[in-house]
């Protein structure tokens, strides 16, 4: 199906189902219950899961396949965002031209940066991309303020021209929309104590995410993807085999830059503001974290990593001492206080600390990320059920 083999088709369908039903799946706890704060099924976070998933999938096409570690991909996301907002300011609040221009501008910018940076490899390549991204950020923050609106971030105004649309509706800026369907439009479904929100913007992201994911599968399974893995494996042999590795890496760089641009475009389609911080090297570092956490070089890993970090950032960071005290209220007072005292540095505003520790643990013990974790668990499970049949199972592991 879909011209994919059985394994990939299964994966695609699982992801598709997960994305369609995410508003259900991520809201497992009834409204008003103690655990409701762990619900992640609200539009903004759901959109972010998908948008950063797209970003990480694209980054993985470069890093996971070719092994080139870019520390500057956030710049492409930022350029895409700025292009998107400008389309909304100048042309129309319809998100289609904005998203298209985001991809185009990010692609052009990544072509320029990639063309120069890919003249070097290894850490030199990383430093070059880092330098470009930091320059973009510094300039966007200051000298380019007329284009980027500096620190505040580029946003819409009531007096924007919007030549194909309207500048304002009753004193308000019109919402971003897809041919008239506002991105913030939501349906709420109430079932017993549960409330599920289905948001138009989320499903637009979902469509783009599934297309992006499908395309990534095709790339991974194509001769082109094989060449990219060859770059990572042995670039020298590749060259002596008559393959020019530079255009391959450049193509991968531009494709991943366009993914980043798509992510940037979707971000402003959901929330029409583009801040310069999204270009900073720490933002590039974040997508690296996502890809590694999930599992670089695997299809689904980056999406899982993106979801993991965004969940942490948005849900885990909200836990505070009061909530802890509620949780441990059943304990004797002294013990409760002691426990809260011990946990306190790691929760709420200390979430960076927890994230840093978890990241280190994953790099140390699970270099293949979450995906490898699942694989190991599955192995343990298999061994547990069919311990005696080990020799029959001696088929070598697949390459991926």
């Amino acid at each position, binding site marked *: 199906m879909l011209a994919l083999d059985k394994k990939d088709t299964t994966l695609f369908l699982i992801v598709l189902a997960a994305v369609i039903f995410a508003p259900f799946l991520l809201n497992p706890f009834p409204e008003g219950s103690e655990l409701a704060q762990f619900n992640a099924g609200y539009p903004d976070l759901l959109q972010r899961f998908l948008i950063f998933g797209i970003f990480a999938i694209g980054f993985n096409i470069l890093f996971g396949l070719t092994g080139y570690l870019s520390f500057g991909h956030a710049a492409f996301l930022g350029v895409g965002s700025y292009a998107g907002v400008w389309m909304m300011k100048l042309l129309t609040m319809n998100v289609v031209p904005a998203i298209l221009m985001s991809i185009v501008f990010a692609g052009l910018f990544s072509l320029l940066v990639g063309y120069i940076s890919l003249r070097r490899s290894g850490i030199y390549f990383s430093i070059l991309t880092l330098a470009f991204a930091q320059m973009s950020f510094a300039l966007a923050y200051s000298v380019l303020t007329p284009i980027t609106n500096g620190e505040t971030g580029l946003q819409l105004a*009531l007096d924007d021209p919007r030549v194909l649309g309207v500048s304002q509706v009753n004193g308000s800026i019109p919402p971003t929309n897809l041919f008239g369907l506002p991105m913030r439009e939501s349906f709420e479904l*109430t*079932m017993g104590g*549960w409330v599920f929100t289905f948001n138009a913007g989320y499903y637009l992201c979902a469509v783009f995410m599934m297309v992006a994911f499908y395309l990534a599968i095709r790339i991974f399974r194509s001769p082109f993807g094989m060449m990219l893995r060859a770059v990572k494996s042995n670039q020298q042999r590749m060259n002596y085999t008559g393959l020019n590795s530079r255009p391959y890496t450049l193509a991968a760089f531009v494709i991943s830059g366009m993914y980043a641009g798509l992510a940037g475009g979707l971000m402003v389609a959901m*929330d029409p503001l583009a801040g310069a911080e999204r270009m900073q090297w720490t933002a590039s570092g974040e997508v690296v974290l996502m890809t590694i956490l999930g599992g670089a070089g695997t299809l689904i890993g980056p999406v899982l990593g993106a979801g993991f970090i965004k969940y942490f950032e948005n849900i885990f960071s909200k836990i505070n001492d009061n909530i802890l005290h509620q949780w441990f209220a059943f304990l004797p007072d002294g013990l409760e206080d002691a426990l809260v005292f011990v946990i306190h540095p790691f929760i709420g505003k200390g979430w960076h600390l927890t994230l840093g520790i978890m990241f280190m643990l994953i790099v140390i013990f699970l270099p293949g990320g979450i995906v490898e974790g699942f694989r190991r668990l599955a192995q343990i499970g298999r061994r547990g059920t069919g311990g005696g049949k080990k020799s029959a199972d001696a088929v070598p592991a697949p390459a991926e």
Partner: protein
Amino acid sequence: MSGLKNINRRTLLKSTAAVGAGLAMPTIFTSSASASYLNEPTGSTVTLGFNVPQTGPYADEGADELRAYELAVEHLNGGGDGGMMNTFSSKALKGNGILGKKIEYVTGDTQTKSDAARASAKSMIEKDGAIMITGGSSSGVAVAVQALCQEAGIIFMAGLTHSNDTTGKDKKANGFRHFFNSYMSGAALAPVLAANYGKDRKAYHLTADYNWGYTTEQAVRESTEGLGWETVETVKTPLASTDFSAYITPVLQSDADVLVLNHYGGNMVNSLTNAVQFGLRDKQVNGKNFEIIVPLYSRLMAKGAGENVKGIYGSTNWHWTLQDDGSKAFVKSFGEKYGFPPSQAAQTTYVQTLLYADACERAGSFNPCAVVEALEGDSSLPGVSSPSNKGYLFDGLGNGPTLYRAADHQCFKDVLVVKGKENPSSEFDLLEIVEITPVAQVWYEPDNPQFAGGALGTCNPGA
């Protein structure tokens, strides 16, 4: 009953859903059809969103803002000693929450980044059902979140934001600022500077290279030039700078005799420290003592700069040594709860929470449009004759009589000119109030060129 996170905005929806014998019939609503405004509180509680920097360079100010919010919620819900509720000129607040609903709150981390702040605010609106968002410690964040609240249909009560643009070109109908701004700093500082340093001065500006820096430089420059000063040079410094020596030394070579540091936070601490290290204050130029000025002071920043602030002039929104009843009451209840006096950020956020609650009470509704109307009021400041002198007048929250001006949602109140104290009696006693500049002196018209562009638009109830 859960404490903080009992979310009731959807109770109406739940009650209309047919629930029987454990089986629920799905009922589908569009958000626009369900309520007359977004996140209408329908249960016994109302949720406010406190969006402050908990990580990043302004985390300490964010923590102080959060303390003030918690104190305000305590007071509004009838706990504690009531703080400034006792001195507030409006007596609509009853100590039973807002409109009889107990106040609950959610907190978020702005990270002092526009993106993160918007994400955090969106989650408060979408997930937690917050009816009002407040907080922040930088203008970029304030402008970004204010725009979001306008689009979403939520009231935004700004925290610490000093740029002219917040109530200038980026003003929004759903947003309100209690903090003073760059223009007011310039207008209050200039006469004091002229009185102390003379009218024949040559100023050199170092300006943080972002929005707030620009408006502050412009405000201070125009005010001081109006009194006869000359601006020799203005130089923009990167926001990420930690060492300003490369910018300080050219000052030595110019014939300037005053250095204005349009810096805030870590920038201010470092640039001031550098300037003092390079001996600027020991210098004589044009037969005058070389002077340094910091237009926007914060006590928390003054602490960071240590000894270097001594004798340096600046302005501040509020200071805990003020002797009016409101300030005294606030310092007392804050100090007793936390053990140290509140910062200006804490005072602003505390007052903003009270003002919001009061507006809801007076309007009799949480509807953002009703709240906007109540905050736009129908009174005027005594002593200022201007057609734009119209808004909501209140007193007893520090800084004397204060007007929330209807035209741009900017507060007008007395501005404090302060200087670093030579002999502090405690680690909190770092600034001394030089002059309380009366509000009439910092008044400006909404069409002042420094605030040109942008439009308030109309209130958005989000539904």
